[in-house]
């Protein structure tokens, strides 16, 4: 498959999913879009190398996440996102339940939020989350436990479970690390 076609296919198959995941991590759709697109631009610039990775999606997610936590970039993104948002059709409003969840996610530390999303949404195991975030498995477990505890009052039927070794979210292949 030609290089460009392969990239286009990868982008088409993964970009929206990654925006969803980054949106859950950041609570800001415009910022998630911007970070994910920027990560794909960087991936294209390194495509001969990136295309050989077992889990290119994890590479994009990691780069996009790092972009969202870069404070200088955040300020610039907000401006770009604001300009873009003013041109685009306003998306439908979030339901009250999801607004509550976004609000709760924003209140917990970034590292906990990332762990929660990677484990419960992306479906990574604790070990896989540890590998993607570069934190020890024990730290990931603690982040998950604390994050869930903080979110418990906001999420229906969520009590404070012990940290599970295996994810509940959608199953996926183990990521290779870029």
């Amino acid at each position, binding site marked *: 498959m030609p290089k*460009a076609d392969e*990239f*286009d296919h990868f*982008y*088409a198959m993964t*970009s*929206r*999913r990654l*925006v*969803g*995941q*980054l*949106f*859950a991590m950041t609570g800001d*759709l415009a910022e*998630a*879009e911007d970070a*994910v*697109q920027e990560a*794909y*631009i*960087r991936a*294209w*610039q390194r495509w001969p190398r990136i295309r050989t990775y077992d889990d290119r999606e994890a590479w994009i997610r990691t780069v996009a996440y790092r972009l969202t936590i870069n404070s200088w970039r955040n300020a610039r993104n907000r401006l770009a996102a604001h300009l*873009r948002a003013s041109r*685009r059709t306003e*998306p*439908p409003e*979030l339901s009250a*339940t*999801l607004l509550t*969840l*976004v609000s709760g996610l924003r209140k917990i530390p970034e590292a906990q939020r990332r762990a*929660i*999303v990677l484990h*419960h*949404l992306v479906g990574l195991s604790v070990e896989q989350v540890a590998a993607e975030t570069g934190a020890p498995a024990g730290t990931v477990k603690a982040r998950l436990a604390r994050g*869930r505890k903080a*979110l418990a009052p906001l*999420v*229906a*039927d*969520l*009590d404070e*479970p*012990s940290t*599970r070794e295996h994810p*509940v*979210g*959608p199953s996926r292949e183990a990521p290779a690390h870029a």
Partner: protein
Amino acid sequence: MHDSLSGLSGQLSELAGYGSGNADLDTPAAIRQRGRWRARRRRGGAALLSAGVIAAAGTGLTLGGATIPGSTRTPASGQSAPAASVRLTAYQAHVLEQTHVTAAQVAALAKSGLTAAQIKEMAASHLTAAQLANPGKEHLSAAQIVAAYTAHLTAAERAALARENLSVPQIIALAKANLTAAQLAALA
């Protein structure tokens, strides 16, 4: 317990679904175009720098962040690259190139032992190389005399300055480039 965790996963999935469903993304062709444009811009900058690059005979050093293949400090193949500090940054190469300071001139000054501090002294009081090389023959202001004194130039440094005959803007550019001791050592 499984239900409670499913509750969180379910709500997160719903949230992500909202993000995915409402994402307003560029086409892959547009993404590739942006990547290409950015790479071109970077290459363009590099080309601009290399246009003013003059390889320093003997040292093999070029401006523009290139390595120093001719230097004795160049590691043997298979070893790690030289430390970043001996490479000129794009900014350093740019300011030197703007005033047509060549790598050969910098190398000659470095070889004579001229330090970054001395270059700064010269730049701060607008001293030319000729003034510093021959302070007796040149008309110097009081501030320049002080600077010439504080620069503590050796005979070798004075000789090198005389040979290279740098103008005030060139010396200011050298000061702006703020070459590190490691860079000067690598050049020399």
